[in-house]
C-alpha cells in the first residue's frame, strides 16, 4: 500500500520521534511503499497567507502554493499521523498543514455552501499520538484532536475506511512500562496494517 506518514515533532530524541521511527520501520519491513513527510524536517510554514485566503475557493489556483504536498496527499492510499498533542490540539505546524493543504477541490468540495468530503483515495487512517495530561483531563476538555481524527478526518476519507486512534495519555507521568506497552501496541497495529 502507498502510505503517507505525516510527522510533526521538533525534537530528535523525543518519544514521539521514536514512535515515528517505529512506524516507518515496521511499515517498511511489511513491504509498504512509504512517502515520509516530516513537517519539521521540511521546515513547513503553517501560516496560510493572504493570497491563499483570497484564492481559497478558486479551484483553478488554490493549490498552487502547496502543489507538491497536494500531489503527495492525493497519491496516498493510506494516511498515518504521528504527532504530540499540545494544548489540547495539534502542534501549529500540523494544524497549518490542514489549513493550507486540505483545500476545497483536494479534500472536500463545496456544494451550495456546504462541505462534501472527497479525499476518497485514502482508504485507511491511523493516528499515533501522545498527550501530556491524563485521558480524564482530555475528556473534560472535549479531547479536540481525538474528535478531529475520529469525526472530521474519518468523514473526509473514503466512506467506511478503517481508522485507528492510538493515544498514550499522561506522558508527564509516564513510566518505562507504560511507554513500552504503547510501543508494543503501535508495533502490532503497524504489523497488521
Amino acid at each position, binding site marked *: 500500500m502507498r502510505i503517507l506518514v505525516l510527522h510533526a*515533532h*521538533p*525534537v*530528535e530524541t*523525543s518519544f514521539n520521534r521514536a514512535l515515528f521511527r517505529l512506524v516507518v520501520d515496521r511499515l517498511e519491513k511489511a513491504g509498504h511503499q512509504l512517502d515520509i513527510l516530516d513537517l*519539521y524536517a521540511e521546515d513547513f*510554514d*503553517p*501560516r*496560510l*497567507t*493572504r493570497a*491563499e*485566503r*483570497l484564492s481559497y*475557493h478558486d479551484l483553478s489556483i488554490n493549490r498552487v502554493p502547496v502543489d507538491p504536498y497536494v500531489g503527495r496527499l492525493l497519491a496516498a492510499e493510506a494516511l498515518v499521523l504521528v504527532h504530540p498533542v*499540545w*494544548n*489540547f*490540539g*495539534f*502542534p*501549529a*505546524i500540523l*494544524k*497549518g498543514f*490542514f*489549513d493550507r493543504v*486540505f483545500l476545497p477541490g483536494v479534500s472536500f468540495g*463545496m456544494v*451550495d*455552501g*456546504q*462541505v462534501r468530503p472527497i479525499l476518497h483515495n485514502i482508504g485507511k487512517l491511523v493516528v499515533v499520538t501522545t498527550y501530556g*495530561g491524563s485521558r480524564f*483531563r482530555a475528556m*473534560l*476538555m*472535549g*479531547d*479536540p*484532536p481525538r*474528535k*478531529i481524527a475520529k*469525526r*472530521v478526518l474519518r468523514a473526509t476519507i473514503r466512506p467506511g475506511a478503517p481508522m485507528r486512534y492510538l493515544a498514550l495519555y499522561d506522558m*508527564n*507521568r509516564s513510566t518505562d512500562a507504560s511507554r513500552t506497552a504503547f510501543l508494543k501496541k503501535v508495533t502490532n497495529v503497524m504489523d497488521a496494517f
Partner: protein
Amino acid sequence: MRVLVVYCHPVPESFAAGLRDAAVDELLKAGHEVDLVDLYAEGFDPVMGADERRRYNTMVMADHPFPGHAERLQAAQGILFVYPTWWYGLPAMLKGWLDRVWTPELTFKIPDGPGPIVPLMTHVRLLGVITTCGAPRWWSYVVGHPGKRTILRGMRALCARRCRTLFMAHYMMDKSTDASRARFLASVRARLARL
C-alpha cells in the same frame, strides 16, 4: 478591565477585521482598557523549534521566547480571541501563539508529585471567542467544536476559577449575506457593550 484582544486573520479587509474593530470599539466605549495583538501583522512565528521544546517543561521566565507577549499576557484581566475557524479549530498562527507564549511558570506549573497542573493565570477573569465557521452549528457541535473547546475549556483551566466565558460564532460563513453579517456584528457589539 484590561482586555487583551488577540486577533488572527491574514486578510486586512476581512470580515474578521470588522469584528475586531467592532469589539475594540465597544470595549473602549464601555471604559475597558484594550491591548491589541495582531498576529499576522507582526509576522508571528507559530512553529516551536527543537531547543524551545527541549526546555519547555522547565521553562523559566528569563528564557521565555517572547518576553513582550508574556508581559502582555500577565497584565491581562480578560482575553478576547477574534479569528476565523479553519478545519474546526484555530488557525495554525493562533495555535502556535498558545503553544509558544502560554509557557509553564507563566501560565501553569507542573507539580513535582502526583496531581494536576496548577493554574497560574488566575488574574484572567474573562475568556471570550468571536469567530466565523464555514460549517453549520449542528455539525460544529457533532465534531466537538475543537477550537472553542481548546480555548474555553483547555486554556480556561489555567485561568481564575470563576473565569467567565463568552462565545459568539457566525456559522455557515460561505452562505452568509450582507444582512447576516450585519446582524452578527450588531450582536457582537451588543454583547460586548454589556460585559
